[in-house]
């Protein structure tokens, strides 16, 4: 799908739609630094998300930093009858592979290792391409963004599993499961990448592609 050479945009018409309720408002000239609000729902109105790229970069950097301890540190430790075993995400994957549970290993690997990396890389690419004013395949890039946004929440599966296990397995001396620091970092990675995806404004892709 290639965009038409010149399409009238709301911004070009001096308008912007409210993010919350979709009301089309006129971007009147206003005092510097003053915030515009939707007359219907009260949400802030801006033609494009403010400082979108800067925010995205900052959050991506934070996510990348957190990603390292999330994978190096154990996410949980299982203590059963005096024997304590700490597992990182990757050691869990290796465990399932060694025991022949390929489907489970693939699911965990995809959701916990592959997807966060994918999100970080895609967002970084999108931010970079927008920054450099790339006009290359804006439709595909937009689709990439949509995938990123859709898949992001599934990475939280690990955190859910850990929290549920920690709550359930409280058998005193027999068995206990403790969350470890890795889980905190992992949760941070997921949340921060979701925020990064949120802060990225896909319309920027088209601003360049439909170039002025």
């Amino acid at each position: 799908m290639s965009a038409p050479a010149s399409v009238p945009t709301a911004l070009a018409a001096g308008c912007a739609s409210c993010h919350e309720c979709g009301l089309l408002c006129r971007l009147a000239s206003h005092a510097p630094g003053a915030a515009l609000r939707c007359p219907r729902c009260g949400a802030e109105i801006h033609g494009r998300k403010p400082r979108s790229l800067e925010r995205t970069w900052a959050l991506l950097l934070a996510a990348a930093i957190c990603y390292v301890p999330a994978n190096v540190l154990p996410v949980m430790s299982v203590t059963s009858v005096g024997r304590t075993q700490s597992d990182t995400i990757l050691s869990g994957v290796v465990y399932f592979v060694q025991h022949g549970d390929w489907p489970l290993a693939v699911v965990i690997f995809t959701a916990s290792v592959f997807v966060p990396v994918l999100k970080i890389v895609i967002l970084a690419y999108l931010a970079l391409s927008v920054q450099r004013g790339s006009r290359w395949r804006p439709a595909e890039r937009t689709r990439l963004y949509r995938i990123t946004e859709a898949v992001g929440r599934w990475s939280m599966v690990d955190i859910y599993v850990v929290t549920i296990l920690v709550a359930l397995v409280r058998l005193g001396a027999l068995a206990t499961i403790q969350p470890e620091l890795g889980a905190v970092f992992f949760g941070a990675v997921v949340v921060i990448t979701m925020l990064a995806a949120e802060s990225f404004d896909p319309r920027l892709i088209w601003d360049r592609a439909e170039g002025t």
Partner: protein
Amino acid sequence: MSEGESPAGPAAAEPVIERGGRRLSVVWLIPIVAAVVGAVVAWRAISEHGPQIEIRFATAEGIEAGTTKVKFKQVEVGLVEEVVLAEDLSGVVVRARMVNDAERWLREGTRFWVETARVAGGQVSGLGTLLSGAYIGVDPVLEGEEAHRFVALETPPVVSAGQAGRHFTLRSYRAGALPVGTPVFFRHLEVGRVVSSVLDESGDFVEIGIFVDAPHDRRVQRDARFWNASGLDVSVTASGVQVDTESVVSLLVGGIAFDTPPRSDAPPAEADASFVLHETRQAAEDAVYGEKQYYLVRFTQSVRGLVVGSPVEFLGIPIGRVTEIRLVIDHERKTFEVPVVIEIEPGRIADRQVPGSISEWHANLDQVVAQGLRAQLRSGNLLTGQLVVALDMHERAEAAQIDWSGPLPEIPTVPAPLEELTSSAMRIAQKIERLPLDEIARDVRGALEALRGTLAQTDRTLASTQGLISPGSPVIGELQRTLVELREASRSLGLAADQLQQEPESLIFGREDGP
């Protein structure tokens, strides 16, 4: 952006809308915080990271990478990171990450072992590992060269490095069911344990290392005697049946006992001193006399009942034992003899003087043998029929002396009491046999015949004598008459004497007839 193209107003009048300027957005705090937290976590992880060490094990049984811990006094001091085969396949190398202050005690003397549930030396240990899995035990040492490569022990050390007490070495001909952990007793009180049991370099002895806890280690004096107190010691000796045991535990798992001679004032033995481990308590007590002299005694009679170990007694007091009994044939004389080697402990003979040298002892022995000291087989126990070699003074024995020519000095012997009796009876019989009995009989018969003739003659003589003195014989009648006459004569002589008394003048003037 495309503000400049806004149709809402003239381009020249439209001011540039400030959007907070080029200031850094607050959002950059997020990566900064993430970086700081990450750095803190990383720093903590690195600071907790101690040295990695290599421990060599025979097998990796019970050891799992990432799970098995290294513990000292049940405190975790390390974690196994990797288990690999040794290059020469003779064992496994376990790489463990220790806590960060572990360098302090990772010295050459530090020992590692696998702690699992085990039953040894009458004790059950490590039951907790049945559930929690094995762990690697460590016995840290604070002195010595720093080290990062270790060879693990096969079994947990019986004595940890800081324990108070002393090590000693016992030498024995055989290990005698004394595994590591076997208790050591002093007067039936458990005071130590066996810590090692290895062959010495020559292979002749087993060197048993023991550890005696403080303060009992002072009881190990220089003259201490050790014996194997394993099980039940039943011995049948010339003095009867003896049963000896140290404790029920030693009955089951064996044990070593030691003691000091009574009234001993020897100083405590220094650490690592070496002692002899005797087979039995008796042997240990016997061994106190230390110095032994060997002699040969030859018997020509049956030595049935004499065994190796039979006592050698002097005046009824045991002073040694039989160590060897052989049977030798003398081809020239076609006789057999039994050389018996006896062991005598001169120390058992209390010397009023200062104990002299061996040559002095030999000179004394020479003198004593000259005075009549002889060896003799004697029944030690009528019930068991055991014999003892008795050394006694036989003043009337034939003169003899010690034969110093052989490899062992030979003490002359005298026959056993029974044998002596038999041989003298034999001598009498032989003499009787040598008597000329036939001749004697002939002489006696001649004599008897002559005697018979004499007797017949005597008979006749007696018969005629009988005739002479029989009541109606003339001799008797004659005699009777003679006697009557004699009586008459004496009466008239009496009358005459009376008359003479009354009338003495009648002797001169004659008898006056009637007054």
